[in-house]
């Protein structure tokens, strides 16, 4: 269904039932615990989408009990289907991790705006499951040899699709940093700071991860005069800009919806 009155930014969004192709656990090494998994869904048939955009997902078992959909970055889009990389966190992601092939989940998207794709040296900074959108980004980029990925993580590396990213886009430079103790964090941030500095001159920086991580990057970018885009992970009710539950304050002091005006913002245009 579509309406002639839909504003341009909305025209492309669909709400549909998509068949689950499979659920691929990551990092299921010794224990039975699967921290992360890839949820592969049938191709939604979108006309257009951009890396950094996301979808809202509901499993039928949410019923009336879990009210909101759950937000996930578009991690890969191929003709064979749409992949989301999900970290099991609470009730919703647990239920999604238990979906079975052939089941239908409700998906609305592609939502929000994406990362800028510019043909210049680009640094991708990912914290934890913040890695998810960068697979799509690296795959879609016209000059992947200009890309550098720095990935900080707490769970074992095999929990995340890091190797997949490297295999998919071998032209990009990729490094990972395992934060095992709290003392490792300053070391990681030092490494990030050094990189941000390298991209201050004519480069582009993109970041996705926990808010404290994004806050640190915003500060570094400001100090070194670098252009950076941050992808925010605010709690979302509707995903389409209606409930005003996900807002961030912009540089004009206005509260704007992260779901529809973001989730990607220029670092200097928002307060964090």
């Amino acid at each position, binding site marked *: 269904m579509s309406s002639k009155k839909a504003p341009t930014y909305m025209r492309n969004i669909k709400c549909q039932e998509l068949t689950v192709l499979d659920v691929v656990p990551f990092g299921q090494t010794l224990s039975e615990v699967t921290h992360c998994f890839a949820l592969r869904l049938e191709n939604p048939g979108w006309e257009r989408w951009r890396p950094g955009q996301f979808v809202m997902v509901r499993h039928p078992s949410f019923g009336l009990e879990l009210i909101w959909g759950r937000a996930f970055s578009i991690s890969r889009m191929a003709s064979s289907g749409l992949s989301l990389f999900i970290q099991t966190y609470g009730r919703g992601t647990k239920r999604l991790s238990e979906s079975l092939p052939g089941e239908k989940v409700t998906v609305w998207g592609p939502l929000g705006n994406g990362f800028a794709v510019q043909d210049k040296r680009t640094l991708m900074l990912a914290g934890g499951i913040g890695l998810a959108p960068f697979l799509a980004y690296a795959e879609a980029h016209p000059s992947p040899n200009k890309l550098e990925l720095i990935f900080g993580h707490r769970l074992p590396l095999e929990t995340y699709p890091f190797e997949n990213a490297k295999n998919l886009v071998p032209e990009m430079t990729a490094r990972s940093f395992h934060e095992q103790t709290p003392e490792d964090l300053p070391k990681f941030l030092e490494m990030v700071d050094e990189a941000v500095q390298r991209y201050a001159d004519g480069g582009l920086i993109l970041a996705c991860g926990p808010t404290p991580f994004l806050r640190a990057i915003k500060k570094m970018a400001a100090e070194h005069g670098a252009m950076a885009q941050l992808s925010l992970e605010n709690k979302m009710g509707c995903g389409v800009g209606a409930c005003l539950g996900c*807002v961030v304050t912009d540089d004009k002091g206005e509260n704007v919806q992260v779901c529809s005006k973001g989730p990607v913002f220029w670092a200097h245009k928002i307060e964090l």
Partner: protein
Amino acid sequence: MASKTSTTPDTRVSLPGLAIKNPIMTASGTFGYGLEFASFGKLEDLGGIVVKGLSLKPRAGNPMERIAESPCGMLNAIGLQNIGVERFLEEKLPALPHEETAIVANLYACDAAEFGELAQALAADARLAALEVNVSCPNVAAGGQAFGQDPAQAAAVTRAVKDAAGSMPVIVKLSPNVADITMVARAVADAGADMLTCINTLLGMAVDLKTRRPRLANVVGGLSGPAIKPVALRCVWQVSQAVDIPVIGVGGISTAADVLEFILAGAHAVQIGTANFMRPDTVFHIVEELPALMSTYGVTHLDELRGTLQV
């Protein structure tokens, strides 16, 4: 109940000064300014759209966190963030299907005079079908209690809006956070309200055991969603018996069956709120499913069903 017929059921509803093609409206604050949902269905298929609560000047709302999920419901303390009446009329209203669907402005102010000013600005625009008055502003003069909790103050606000609204119908939206909702309902009806909406959110809170802090920055917020449906049904039933003006039911409605339950309890029309978040096309599905469900229960016109609950 009437016997099953083969004719297509008539979903039209006639309200004071307002005829709508079906009883399904969207609830204020849950459907943005309407356009946010335009790609999930045809806005012109809806009986009405009640837009996000408007104030005279734009408002930034409360600090984050503003929303929290709870079993079968959610809490919100958005704090009435809105773009203000001027920008609404200029930027949003022209794009809404105001000829096919009743566009209702939800008003929010902190004293009767300001309510009057706001009502005047909105009632001058013929593209709007009605005004819905939200009387939940905590009134400092009354010790932080909302207008809607005091029959006299709710009546004063109703009078101010009625006086300013001219011929535009005025709906007053009642709060369930009172000992006896029929007292406020009667006071507001006597003050000239054309219709009532039952109910706004229930005051609640959520705490985080890990951080030992409230989950909402505002500490308390409004509970909505399927969890409040029984309360809303009760209020609609009580109020529709206490007053002679039509009642619009809202609270936890997420299916066409819920709609018919509210009409059975006495509602003339309904609003869909939190269910719009559960799936952004919910309200369009309900509109589509309603006629078939009416047929299933042998209802050819909603007037036959309204208020026929046998107790």
